[in-house]
């Protein structure tokens, strides 16, 4: 096998982005562990050392942590440094995952979050010793309310899905206060999986609403399905096709006429910030993903933050505690009888909030608007250059991302998944594969505003080269990638008999 390894260089000359280089191997920590090795040193104990068994009682005292690693400090730094070199990252290149808004994460935000007085602030420190942290949160709430055009914001949710859950709980509490929580949540078939999952967690049944032939919410269909059983509709705008819901105001009106609320999934606010405000087109409640629109790093899957912004009518129900001003001091308000209660301990992912506020300060109002237009420009540039080679899923103008289908390539036996893997050989992280579900074999591409024309041109050149390869030699594309230290990974076997932890053999 090894000898037959194809390197993209050998396959064709159109790979301009990468060459192959040595990459260090590394075993698991448990495999490099050896008894007695240590990588730490503790301070001299300045009090008498006690005997655990004596203090805790024999039954409570643990004898050892079975097969826990034993390694040196050098082992640790080499282990994780080597591992890190096996990853792709924004700092290495374009990361065009649609819906994920993988923009550059400014490093100054990391420095801000590490300021001692913020990083070491304890959530139970008395308010008068926490004014700095509270001021930061108040300032961010103000900025997010202005950006969304909503009346109040809670920063407690830890991520987008958590924000969705919080938002739907608010809807429920509000309707309950009206006397009837209602039964179901309408969710477009183009929606992200977290939307229906959230509705279910909040005790609602989910009714999927088919999009129209332009991939948008169909007001006709909506009029047909909306009724007094409907608590709310969860709409993503721009939707997951990257298209602005042109009738969003009508959608709001139709819902409001039936006493339903409009929830907006704000994952795509990178297309609207500074240009259009959900609060101005009828949205009652929405969440934001600070780890998307506001550039806090994804960190390999998290942490994030999913603030929820609401109209006045929902404010009484927001999670507690709430920030309130008492004289010249900030204080935490717990006495809020109508609140849905807490959705998380303490006040939210504060460290992420600091980064988001730093991002907003760095851009300022005008800068945020400019960034949005740059995001739109980049997405439309890529769409335009790719259209001759790939099938655009829906013809309407794109906002911050564009969605193609693999229709043409499928005819030659290659699907979006393999195109994505082949893209890796060309030195890029793949786009989002097979989402949204309403597009068969979707290629969902979001460059964000922080990509340069140079990088995007290399990306499009790669996509075009792959389209050509598919015509000449589809087999090569089907078994990509070839140039990575790990070739195509067998996910089926992984799921068939799951091995989710290392065990002593």
């Amino acid at each position, binding site marked *: 096998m090894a000898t037959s390894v194809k390197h993209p260089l050998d396959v064709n000359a159109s790979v301009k982005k990468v060459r192959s280089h040595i990459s260090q191997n*590394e075993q698991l920590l*448990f495999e490099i562990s050896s008894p007695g090795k240590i990588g*730490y040193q503790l301070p001299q*104990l300045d*009090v008498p*050392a006690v005997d655990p068994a004596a203090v805790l009682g024999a039954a409570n005292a643990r004898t050892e942590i079975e*097969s826990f690693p034993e390694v040196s400090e050098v082992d640790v730094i080499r282990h994780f440094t080597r591992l890190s070199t*096996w*990853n792709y990252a*924004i700092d*290495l290149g374009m990361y065009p995952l649609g819906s994920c808004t993988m923009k550059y*994460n400014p490093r100054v935000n990391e420095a*801000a979050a590490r*300021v001692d007085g913020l990083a070491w602030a*304890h*959530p139970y*420190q008395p308010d008068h*010793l926490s004014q*700095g942290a509270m001021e*930061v949160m108040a300032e961010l709430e103000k900025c997010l309310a*202005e950006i969304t*055009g909503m009346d109040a914001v809670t920063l407690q949710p830890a991520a987008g*899905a958590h924000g969705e859950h919080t938002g739907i709980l608010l809807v429920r509490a509000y309707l309950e206060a009206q006397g009837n929580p209602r039964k179901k949540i309408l969710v477009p078939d183009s929606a992200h*999986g*977290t939307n229906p999952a*959230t509705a*279910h*967690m909040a*005790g609602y049944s989910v009714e999927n609403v088919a999009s129209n032939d332009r991939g948008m919410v169909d007001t006709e269909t909506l009029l047909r399905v909306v009724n007094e059983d409907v608590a709310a509709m969860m709409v993503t705008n721009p939707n997951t096709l990257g298209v*602005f819901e042109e009738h969003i*105001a009508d959608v709001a009106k139709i819902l409001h006429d039936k006493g339903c609320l409009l929830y907006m999934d704000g994952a795509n606010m990178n297309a609207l910030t*500074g240009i*259009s405000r959900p609060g*101005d*087109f009828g949205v009652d409640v929405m969440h934001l993903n600070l780890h998307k629109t506001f550039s806090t790093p*994804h*960190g*390999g899957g*998290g*942490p994030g933050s999913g603030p929820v912004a609401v109209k006045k009518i929902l404010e009484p129900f927001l999670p507690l505690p709430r920030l309130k001003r008492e004289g010249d001091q900030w204080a935490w308000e717990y006495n809020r009888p109508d609140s849905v209660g807490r*959705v*998380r*301990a303490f006040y939210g992912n*504060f460290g992420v909030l600091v980064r988001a506020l730093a991002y*907003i300060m760095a851009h*300022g*109002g*005008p800068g945020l*608007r400019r960034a949005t*237009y740059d995001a*739109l*420009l980049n997405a*439309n*540039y890529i769409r335009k250059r790719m259209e001759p080679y790939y099938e655009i899923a829906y013809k309407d103008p794109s906002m911050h991302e564009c969605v193609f289908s693999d229709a043409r390539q499928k005819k030659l036996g290659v699907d979006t998944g393999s195109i994505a893997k082949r893209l*890796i050989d060309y030195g890029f992280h793949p786009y989002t*594969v097979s989402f949204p579900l309403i597009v068969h074999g979707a290629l969902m591409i979001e460059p964000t505003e922080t990509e340069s024309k140079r990088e995007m041109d290399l990306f499009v050149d790669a996509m075009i080269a792959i389209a050509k390869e598919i015509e000449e030699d589809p087999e090569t594309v089907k078994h990509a990638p070839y140039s990575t230290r790990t070739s195509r990974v067998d996910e089926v076997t992984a*799921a068939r008999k*799951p*091995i*989710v932890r290392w065990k002593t053999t």
Partner: protein
Amino acid sequence: MLDTIGISSVEDLTSHLPDEVLLHRPLNIADGKSEYEILDYFGARGAENSLGSTPARPSFLGAGVYRHYRPVLVDTIVSRSEFLTSYTPYQAEIAQGTLTAIFEFQTMVCQLTGMDVANASMYDASTAVPEAAMMAMRVTGRSHVLAARGVHPEYREVLHTYAKYSGMPVDEFGFSGETGLIDVKDLESKITKDTAAVILQSPNFFGVIENVKQAAEIAHANGALLVVVFSEAVSLGIVEPPRDADIVAGELQSFAIPPSYGGPFAGVIACKEKFIRQIPGRLVGETKDDKGNRAFCLTLATREQHIRREKATSNICTNQALIALMATVYMSVYGKQGLRELAVQNLSKAQYLAGKLNRRFTGATFNEFVVSTGKKSAAQVNSELEAKGIVGGLDLERFYPELKNTMLLCCTEMSKRDHMDQVAQVFA
């Protein structure tokens, strides 16, 4: 680029939007600032959180958020672009670094907790608790949940919020005013055939180590699952893990994660092998690549929202990956011997201070304990400490009206003897 697209200005890209949705004024947010001004601003905010808010300044607050020394390697590693700026590892071929680290994380959490399976992280312990409860509902087909009042009050608040609207009645059972352990009688009187889960925390909110074995027997005898919660992960260095639990829901903040005014932290859910298909959140599994090399990938995705939508085990998508990586590095640095020695230091410091004060409960504790403040109110003791530049403990009356004039104190390896002596003086 405009030419390629065939437009004359970027504004053309929004010309198709209905006029009424457009914002016709600039955002009311000040102009962009420089790095220097931004760091000035946050530096000033940090300075306002005067006391306690640096490693050097003494504080005896714990109660779910612990001040442990953060080895320099942790930030060194999580600051590497390849970890910091990568996305969820869906494309395994260029994410083996993150996947391998998560697999190690899952393994170490299992080793620590005595469970068979651990997920890749939850938002925090407070959200892991209701997720564990809902998991127990799915497993048992029952709907009631019994939570000990010794579980962190804010975790219970979150549990109530989640439960309220998802048809999951939650009852609470009490603790012994003498030992601080769960009130077994109360538990036995409240547990029924509808009880899906009995939830308790150990060490509990009072720092007292619960008798997990006994609770497990009661739960299992009634066909319920036992969910054990932990908020102080360092305790697992010397405290027997909850091997008899069915599900463990914990908080790893103690593992090199800064207090950061309450987040981001890293929660985790671990369980027995047989419940693996009901566990929420991401799981990394071992497999091979097509050359036969060992490889890792996200697995059992059929539990998750992006595949199963409303039938998913949870709606969680983004988790706390980078924070879990901090904990992974921390566990690697301390290792088998270090985590134990660290725990012994915590225990020794707590014993030193507790020995000088008037303890409220008789149950064995790790690095936190409840003391009665005697004639003085807790608030008064804290303000006297504040005058000495020391942040005191948590006034328990806030969460337990029956515990007037008591305070929860926490000592870690960072607590210095002379500060502890000053605390003792104020109490004296």
